[in-house]
């Protein structure tokens, strides 16, 4: 198994593929692809497609097929999660202090709170699509953050690229992972679920085949603003960082963008919304870690943990 680790998208990237020279070539191509994608979809880069789209809210803007794909996916998951997954919360995220990349926040501190949530924000369903001319128009003053779903989308596309060089393969970006194929050793892919409170420790280990795994957590991208702990997961119902039942939610799905959207929605919605989302999507496999370190999850999530190793610390 060949692997390559590097930093991109403000997180650590791990690529792995079986094979010899072709695998090595594939890893380098995959790395270049990720770096190009980052420049297109980051909201922190002034020339990215997303930044340009946000700057021109209220006007028709031609977008690439990939950005159009991301926007239509976002709209779909907004509807499927009852609005809990909502990329149009960027103004609230900035208000909560996340107005620059996390690496800069850790050095310079967060932005200042610029007031309370007004509750008059446009919904993502108000975005107008002109598919035949590849154009979209954001409602005036709307700003979108495709951070999570774009990262998942990039991981999936990268894995599909890497598999053309070497099989099986895996792509991980900060814990958003897509596995294609199974290791030739006959074993499954081993995934360590990091303890959301003590990131040096592992809460559990589970084993998966071809699938995608995404974890959403409120502990990793967190900061203090005016003495109050804030995090990056905005509850669209309040416009404030979500008060959650759990510290992290891990979703296992065949599609990484679905896993990304539902991990966020479940973490924001908590147990109440989980039962509703679960009844609409009974095969949803998710694993939760609460504030006391207890692991729980959906029926399908438990099945992934049936052959797990509980780390007793």
């Amino acid at each position, binding site marked *: 198994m060949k692997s390559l680790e590097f930093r991109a998208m403000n997180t650590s990237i791990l690529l792995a593929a079986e094979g010899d020279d072709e695998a090595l070539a594939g890893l380098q191509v995959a790395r270049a692809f990720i770096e190009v994608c980052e420049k297109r979809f980051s909201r922190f880069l002034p020339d990215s497609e997303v930044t340009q789209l946000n700057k021109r809210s209220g006007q028709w803007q031609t977008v690439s097929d990939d950005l159009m794909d991301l926007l239509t996916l976002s709209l779909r998951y907004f509807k499927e999660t009852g609005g809990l997954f909502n990329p149009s919360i960027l103004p609230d995220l900035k208000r909560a202090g996340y107005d620059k990349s996390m690496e800069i926040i850790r050095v310079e501190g967060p932005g200042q709170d610029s007031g309370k949530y007004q509750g008059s924000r446009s919904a993502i369903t108000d975005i107008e699509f002109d598919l035949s001319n590849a154009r979209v128009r954001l409602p005036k003053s709307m700003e979108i953050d495709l951070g999570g779903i774009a990262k998942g989308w990039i991981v999936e596309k990268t894995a599909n690229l890497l598999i053309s060089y070497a099989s099986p393969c895996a792509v991980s970006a*900060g814990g958003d992972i897509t596995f294609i194929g199974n290791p030739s050793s006959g074993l499954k892919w081993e995934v360590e679920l990091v303890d959301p409170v003590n990131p040096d420790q592992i809460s559990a280990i589970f084993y998966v085949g071809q699938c995608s795994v995404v974890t959403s957590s409120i502990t990793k991208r967190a900061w203090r603003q005016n003495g109050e702990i804030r995090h990056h997961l905005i509850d669209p119902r309040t416009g404030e960082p979500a008060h959650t039942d759990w510290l992290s939610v891990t979703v296992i799905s065949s599609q990484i963008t679905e896993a990304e959207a539902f991990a966020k929605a479940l973490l924001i919605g908590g147990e109440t919304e989980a039962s509703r989302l679960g009844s609409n999507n009974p095969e949803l496999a998710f694993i939760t870690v609460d504030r006391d370190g207890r692991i729980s999850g959906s029926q399908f999530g438990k099945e992934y943990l049936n052959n797990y190793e509980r780390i007793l610390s």
Partner: protein
Amino acid sequence: MKLFKFSLRLWIMLTSVLSFLMGWIMLAHSPKPIQNSTPSSANIAPLPTLAPLPNLSTGNNQSSWNLFQNSPLSVQPQVQPQIQQPVQPTIQQSSNFAPMPKFQTSGS
């Protein structure tokens, strides 16, 4: 001097050809090896027999999610002790069998 060199070359050539021919004749007349398609059982190490794995749910009431969380599985296959020389699988060591990298999921 030229005559000496010519003689030496001729001598080397003739002895080489003669040696080759003698070797050929000897091999052609030597007895053929015994072809035995059914290997003797004495040459094969016995295969290890493993005891059946215990049922994971046996003895543990794992229908409760909390019980499941707090009961780490410790299932060890029981190898029969009389086996002395188990057959070693022949694995082609290549980079494909290098250890798998650790995949961690922690949220972002």
